């Protein structure tokens, strides 16, 4: 086995080792972080958020909900004005 190949295997071993080590470290840190935050700084009012497992893409629904209230408010106002004429 020549130099290039041993280097390649070295890179694979080191690489996968490091990727797993680092992501495991991240699992531990993240889990610990979440616990700390949720114990000491719990969210004021968790309210009823929309379920995260909804099958729609997050982006489009987010933008839709961002524009709707504004338009809806304008419409409500317009309809009331219209009725009160």
């Amino acid at each position, binding site marked *: 086995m*020549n130099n*290039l*190949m041993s*280097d*390649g*295997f*070295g*890179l*694979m071993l*080191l*690489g*996968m080792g*490091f*990727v*797993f*080590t*680092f*992501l*495991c*470290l*991240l*699992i531990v*840190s*993240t*889990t610990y*972080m*979440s616990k700390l*935050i*949720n114990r000491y*700084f*719990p*969210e004021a009012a*968790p309210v009823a*958020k929309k*379920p*995260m*497992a*909804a*099958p729609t*893409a*997050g982006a489009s629904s987010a933008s839709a909900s961002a524009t709707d209230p504004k338009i809806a408010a304008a419409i409500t106002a317009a309809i009331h004005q219209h009725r009160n004429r």
Partner: protein
Amino acid sequence: MEQKLLNLYHDTGIYQLEFGQAIMIVVGLLLIFLAIKKGFEPLLLLPIGIGAVLVNIPGAGFMAAPVYDAAGHMVSPGGLQYYIYHGGIETGLFPLIIFMGVGAMTDFGPMLANPKTLLLGAAAQFGIFATVIGAVLLGAAGIMDFTLADAAAIGIIGGADGPTAIFVASRLAPELLGAIAVAAYSYMALVPLIQPPIMRALTTHEERSIKMEQLRHVTKAEKIIFPIVVTILVAMFLPSAAPLLGMFCFGNLMRECGVVDRLSDTAQNALINIVTIFLGLGVGSKLSSEAFLNIETLGILSLGLVAFSIGTAAGVLMAKTMNKFSSTPINPLIGAAGVSAVPMAARVANKVGLEANKQNFLLMHAMGPNVAGVIGSAVAAGVMLSYVGG
């Protein structure tokens, strides 16, 4: 006068065009066709295709270097792609800015709700390193002329992350950049074709039907702290991944912190769009006949496909293993999303899951390994830059 007419004729593409250039123009047109007609990652492949066409027009000088006289005054200006390539790609600026924008578009919520899925993002990177071995074998056997740096840059295609692949290739194997970028984005676009057969082959119908528990609610504070935690861990353990992951986390922090929405909005729109246009033209500039029309490109394309397949398989197998030991059920299909290719791979997992069970919505569950895969391939990139470059 006749002389001038002759000059003009000698200036034409018809007179100057070499065979290799003609082929590369056709390759560029093919990329444009795939982008427009087949919807292959058009945001990148369209500008890359145009870039390939433009750089191969003989005499148009899109890659001409500027000429200065002894006093430093410009004698003749450089070409557009010369400035783009040397200003934005060789320096690594464009991939980093794009990574910042991608960070600003990424929601780590599903991953934070189920951090175990980070393991899937780790496993799927096996595709990268297996491909390195493949490239090294081809190199060692003398079939293709690949160095270790080349092999590393080729492997990163398996990371299924365009900007990461371009960043690594610009540092380790600039002469292969064009082929690597084209392979990376093409296979990312082919995820819906490449992954499903592998996923089906490695799982049973029951496994594919597994329903996962609804993800818990993730708080704003967690989402804000997470990119900071990642940045610090990267700083401590893998500084060579810090450019990519630092900018990614910066973008994500802008998104989640809620106090710089105008910056986050610009990073996700005007800025990333501008840089995408120029990145594409710059990558296209590396699609010259000398750099592309050789046996190595064939190797890169084949190895890239292998990388994707192995990464997908590794992710699925890891998910199967985790499902055995986990208290909560894990559908092995979401392992395939670990290659990144956000959000396409997660959608594929969702689709294959729906085939097996019409009530089985895996999209959000697959988004966890999906964004974990982005982190995983950036970490792999950091190891490569450190191992090969250092």
